[in-house]
């Protein structure tokens, strides 16, 4: 399964997962209190750049992340420029982008297995609400393996339709895709039962 993790040995790579998540969320929360002024915009960018440098990811990774959210930046900036004064528009857009970049550092510097383990630890208190944390962990694990299976099934449906010369509308794809997916769900349920999942 494709993950967004970038291997490395930076400061952030070495921090324990829980503490790293907390630290990044505190920084993002701090940013959200910045006023809508030019110096705040500059500060937001400085923090974002520092985060990537200290994280050992470098500015090339920061640039890649910026490109990934270019549409979001464009739409946000456009709306801000239409409705707000220039200073507020620049500050608000900078703050939003810096927050996204910094929060993104968590998955860039933490292995999926470590994050999954942290989530499972976080789920433990759910037991008091009558929710079985182990069942939730199983659900997450099963879902991770199901995504590529359904991507393959979906590609198969599309290929079969193309081979028959069918036009690729949304509804004409989704109905057969849902049927093969739900059949897969039934088989998956039986397989789980057979392995002792009640």
């Amino acid at each position: 399964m494709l993950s967004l993790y970038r291997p490395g040995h930076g400061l952030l790579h070495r921090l324990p997962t829980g503490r790293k998540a907390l630290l990044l969320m505190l920084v993002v929360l701090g940013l959200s209190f910045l006023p809508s002024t030019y110096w705040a915009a500059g500060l937001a960018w400085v923090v974002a750049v520092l985060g990537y440098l200290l994280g050992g990811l470098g500015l090339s990774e920061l640039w890649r992340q910026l490109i990934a959210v270019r549409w979001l930046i464009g739409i946000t900036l456009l709306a801000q420029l239409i409705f707000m004064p220039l200073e507020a528009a620049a500050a608000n857009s900078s703050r939003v982008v810096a927050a996204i970049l910094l929060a993104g550092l968590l998955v860039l510097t933490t292995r999926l297995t470590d994050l999954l383990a942290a989530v499972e630890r976080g789920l433990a208190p759910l037991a008091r609400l009558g929710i079985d944390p182990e069942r939730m962990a199983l659900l997450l694990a099963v879902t991770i393996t199901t995504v590529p299976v359904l991507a393959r099934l979906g590609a198969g449906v599309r290929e079969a339709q193309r081979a028959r010369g069918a036009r690729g509308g949304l509804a004409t794809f989704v109905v057969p895709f849902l049927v093969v997916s739900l059949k897969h769900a039934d088989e998956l349920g039986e397989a789980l039962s057979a392995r002792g999942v009640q």
Partner: protein
Amino acid sequence: MKPRRLEATDLARIAVFTAIVAVLGLPGGLSVFGSVPITAQTLGVMLAGAVLGPWRGALSMVVLLILVAIGLPLLSGGRGGLGVFVGPSAGYLLGWVVGAFVIGLIVHGGPRLTRWRTILGVLVGGIVVIYAFGIPIQSLVTRLPLGPTALQSLVFLPGDLLKAAIAAAITMTLARAYPRAFRRQEAGSQIPVTASAQVTSDGERPAESIR
């Protein structure tokens, strides 16, 4: 109303619907009306609520958001990670959970699956609820006042209305093509899809019972 213990069948369906929403966000030329590209993920959210019902539908969205948060690129355009939860679209994602729940409540709220209730469900849960969470949080994050933010989000309304129409049509078609999808386990909090449930031994039911 409390969710029952998650059985293997439910677990598999929830996992599969989470994956369906992810696959609907994959690039691959899903387009409506020729060249206008729209992300079909909200279609998946609507279908999850309509097919799985309130609790399972909402849970499948929670699972999706957890997996996104830990970095699986499952949102359209391969987005993932904690960043999406601090960005302008955070409220819409939260709205998916509540939206799927409300859709499930409305669509499964009667003794049988009807066309009008399905349409009402996807409109209220799939559009009203999602926008009701999305717009205020977007306004909060970007500090753009509520009015202009709502105006900005109107751009997506035609596409969402279209997806609601498609979701309702697909739900009704699916009920005929694969009625097992709507099968409810006995002794649950869920209401069976048909009141006059002439459910045969393997959970199939005749197509005539669908209005």
